[in-house]
């Protein structure tokens, strides 16, 4: 097995601590969860996950203390590489104490083409005045199934900027539930899914505006090729006294094959009267006019199609705040759309 970024000495996993990354991003702390075993990051770093068993279930917790604003980003790389135990279940928790802020990147990879089922909960608690940049990058093989259930509770003036990048995976299910429980909260969620072959993707989003004066803004965009399928169901709920709520939700899909299918259901449930809310969904195909325009300038059809797809997803990637991460993700997305992933037998090259 030849790896660019993550490698195992002797080509074999003996213990999890043998993982490391050759090209980490600047200012990034890395930790690994290999088959549910945590490694990396020394005890001195404030920003890190530690194991905190919850009965028999594996649980990893990252606690950011009050007022603490580490500059480094924490990258947690979750790896599946042992197909003899395909099912794995663990949970993560991120606890942002008052007035803290942090950036966390979670990457999930399968290292072989075998069948894996990974399921995990993630609990995120944002105390008053705390702020979290959370990016999830999923890049798994076609026989892998991954179910993520993310629950977020937000306090007063808390801010969450979450971006879910589903680059590749056989069957990805992301459910997100956000409760905005304190006034002045701001929640941004961006989602990007790129599916082809027989891949499946489901996003199930529930965003609850339980109190007044909160702001939420969601955009999910997907490109579906071959026989892939995607489902989006999003519900924005505005409680009876949650006045001055601003809530936006959009889901846009680009079908690049005739067989790909999308089912999208954005919903608003509003019980307050002084609010600004909108939702919308589209399922579209390539824009023939702009393809012709590009071709008339000498951009070959294949390239024109890629440019159009890159343009389509641009808006979601723009939401990633860390520049270097944004650039890496953009280049991964481009390679993915150019079909360079399938050429490459070893998916582990394709990580942030």
């Amino acid at each position: 097995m030849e790896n660019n970024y993550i490698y195992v000495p002797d080509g074999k996993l003996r213990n999890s601590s043998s993982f490391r990354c050759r090209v980490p991003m600047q200012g990034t702390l890395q930790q690994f969860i290999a088959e549910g075993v945590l490694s990396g990051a020394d005890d001195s770093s404030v920003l890190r996950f530690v194991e905190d068993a919850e009965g028999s279930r594996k649980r990893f917790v990252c606690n950011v203390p009050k007022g603490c604003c580490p500059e480094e980003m924490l990258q947690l790389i979750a790896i599946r590489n042992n197909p003899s135990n395909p099912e794995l279940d663990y949970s993560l928790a991120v606890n942002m104490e008052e007035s803290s802020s942090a950036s966390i990147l979670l990457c999930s990879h399968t290292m072989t083409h075998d069948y894996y089922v990974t399921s995990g909960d993630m609990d995120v608690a944002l105390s008053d005045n705390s702020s979290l940049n959370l990016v999830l990058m999923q890049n798994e093989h076609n026989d892998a199934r991954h179910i993520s259930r993310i629950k977020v509770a937000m306090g007063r003036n808390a801010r969450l900027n979450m971006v879910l990048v589903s680059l590749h995976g056989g069957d990805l299910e992301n459910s997100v539930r956000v409760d905005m429980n304190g006034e002045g909260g701001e929640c941004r969620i961006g989602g990007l899914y790129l599916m082809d072959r027989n891949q499946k993707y489901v996003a199930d989003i529930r965003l609850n505006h339980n109190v007044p004066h909160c702001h939420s803004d969601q955009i999910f965009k997907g490109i579906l090729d071959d026989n892939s399928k995607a489902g989006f169901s999003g519900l924005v709920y505005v409680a009876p006294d949650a006045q001055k709520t601003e809530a936006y939700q959009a889901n846009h899909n680009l079908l690049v094959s005739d067989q790909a299918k999308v089912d999208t259901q954005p919903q608003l449930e509003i019980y307050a009267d002084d609010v600004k809310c909108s939702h919308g969904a589209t399922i579209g195909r390539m824009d023939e006019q702009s393809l012709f325009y590009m071709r008339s300038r000498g951009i070959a059809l294949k390239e024109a199609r890629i440019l159009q797809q890159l343009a389509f997803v641009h808006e979601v990637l723009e939401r990633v705040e860390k520049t270097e991460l944004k650039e890496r993700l953009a280049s991964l997305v481009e390679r993915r759309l150019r079909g360079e992933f399938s050429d490459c037998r070893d998916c582990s090259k394709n990580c942030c």
Partner: protein
Amino acid sequence: MNDIILNIEGLAATIDGKEILKGIDLTIRKGETHAIMGPNGSGKSTLSAVLAGKPNYNVTGGKVTFMGRDLLEMSPEERSWAGLFLSFQYPIEVPGVTNVNFMKSAVNEHRKQKGLPPLSAAAFLKLMREKMAVVEMDSSFSSRGVNVGFSGGEKKRNEIFQMAMLEPSLAILDETDSGLDVDALRIVAAGVNKLKTPDNAAIVITHYQRLLDYIVPDVVHVLYKGRIIKTAGKELALEVEKKGYDWLIHESEA
């Protein structure tokens, strides 16, 4: 003759089964500028679109040779590589693709076809700056989405900028003057003139003499109901400006 850039013989075309072009003959040689005039709906844009290879246009008859090759066999991108350029009457917006990236893809694809390596970032930016100056375009347009939020005049300037970048052998300017104020018209026309060489040619589609005051044609054609009903020198444009098309239509129907 090897100085012929474009030769059209008996070109007929339909859209959705409706016959729009009904037998066009036109020969354009190196160094020439041809004007095509004619009332709205005559088929001027259809002719441009057929020449540029727009899908959904059905060529039902005739032959088109461009630089010695069968144009109708070529894809739109091949036509561009061979040196054909259409300045669109209604330029298309391409949100999310910046002018820079758009032109980089286009220029490098052209270079690839000529067996040249891609331009370095620095060389490309230099070229871009140089060519933007041709139409007095502000550099802030480079980083904006192609034609997104551009005014009518800015879109037309952008078309001529693209033409300057690609240096075509044949430029078809479809109502490049519409929507331009006097200053913009002068800038765009001056840009087109700067790009003119004895080796290339242009087809200027317009309703108005005022553009032809700047870009002086060698030949003027009037297109009506899918046919060229009159071909003459540049004085024809002045006559059309004064008298309209009715007399020509009567003459052709007589």
